[in-house]
């Protein structure tokens, strides 16, 4: 490649080195990240991953030139302002870290709403003025109430996947609604001949937590039901035994130290209940003690 500048060759060699020395290579999109935030994220990642921005052509060259099988397919995920991330972390963990470091950002005219953008009902900080007209023009139901502009209903102003119009973007920012997220957007990650796309990398922690609880419950259920004794199940099995035994004793009216109070109380309660019905018919049918 005689016509290729020396620095470009160095850069490709450097990228290739990185590709070869890390297990996981991610393709990210850094578009729309303000410089200070990007710096902050680099610092966050410092110990666990290396972020490398470069020209698309150079990254393609490095990927295609690597001996790692299938890695060249990462090319397909170059978007916006692409960058490579190198790490030995589990790619799911990498994705999780990057996602959690994203921060809310103001709406930008022309960007796509990641989810429904809702303007919530309630007071605004605006005094009556021309802003009311702007709100209404943007389709937000607003009126003046007690010297303030108030939004009367929740309003989905941009649906998920739709483009945010210029006037709406400016209104959202003035309302301090920040519907976008900025951060390192990991589009795909390569590890051991496999490419994990971002949809695969999404880890549902809530579901995992629910599954853990479900597994524990199932284990408890099974061990109690099959009467398998262990630390967790044995107290429950004991309670089941005691409960069944008490049920039997109470239902069969067998008096013992555990049942007698309950049975006496039951008789007394029944008597009072019956007495109240009787006295409702005729006060004189019950003695004075019961007439209260």
């Amino acid at each position: 490649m005689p016509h290729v500048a020396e620095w470009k060759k160095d850069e490709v060699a450097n990228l290739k080195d990185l590709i070869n020395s890390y297990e996981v290579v991610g393709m990210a999109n850094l578009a729309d990240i303000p410089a200070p935030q990007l710096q902050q994220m680099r610092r966050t990642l410092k110990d666990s991953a290396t972020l490398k921005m470069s020209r698309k052509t150079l990254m393609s060259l490095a990927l295609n030139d690597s001996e790692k099988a299938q890695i060249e397919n990462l090319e397909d995920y170059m978007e916006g302002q692409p960058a490579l991330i190198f790490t030995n972390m589990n790619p799911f963990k990498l994705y999780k870290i990057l996602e959690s470091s994203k921060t809310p950002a103001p709406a930008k005219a022309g960007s796509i709403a990641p989810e429904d953008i809702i303007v919530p009902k309630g007071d605004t900080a605006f005094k009556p003025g021309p802003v009311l007209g702007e709100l209404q023009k943007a389709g937000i139901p607003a009126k003046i109430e007690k010297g303030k502009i108030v939004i009367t209903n929740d309003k989905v102003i941009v649906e998920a996947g739709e483009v945010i119009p210029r006037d709406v973007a400016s209104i959202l920012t003035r309302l301090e609604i920040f519907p976008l997220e900025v951060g390192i957007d990991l589009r795909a990650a390569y590890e051991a001949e496999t490419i994990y796309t971002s949809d695969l990398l999404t880890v549902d922690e809530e579901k995992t937590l629910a599954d853990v609880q479900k597994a524990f419950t199932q284990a408890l259920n099974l061990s109690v039901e099959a009467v398998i004794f262990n630390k967790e199940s044995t107290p429950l099995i004991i309670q089941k035994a005691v409960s069944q035994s008490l049920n039997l004793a109470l239902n069969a009216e067998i008096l013992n130290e555990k049942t007698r109070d309950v049975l006496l109380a039951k008789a007394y309660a029944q008597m009072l209940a019956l007495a109240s019905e009787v006295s409702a018919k005729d006060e004189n049918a019950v003695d004075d003690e019961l007439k209260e």
Partner: protein
Amino acid sequence: MEYIYTAMLLHTTGQEISEENVKKVLEAAGAEVDEARVKALIAALEDVDIEEAMEKTAVAAAAPVAAAA
């Protein structure tokens, strides 16, 4: 309360809650029998479903339990 217990006792043993039976039980229990009250009790019980009335305790009682949960 002895009148009510007597009625419950007779109800449980399946005996008729008659003047005679009530008196017999009360006397066996060493109670002084008030004829007027016996009559009033029997009259009052005529319209009462004893089983149901006793059960009501359980139900009424069960509610607060649940509430207390």
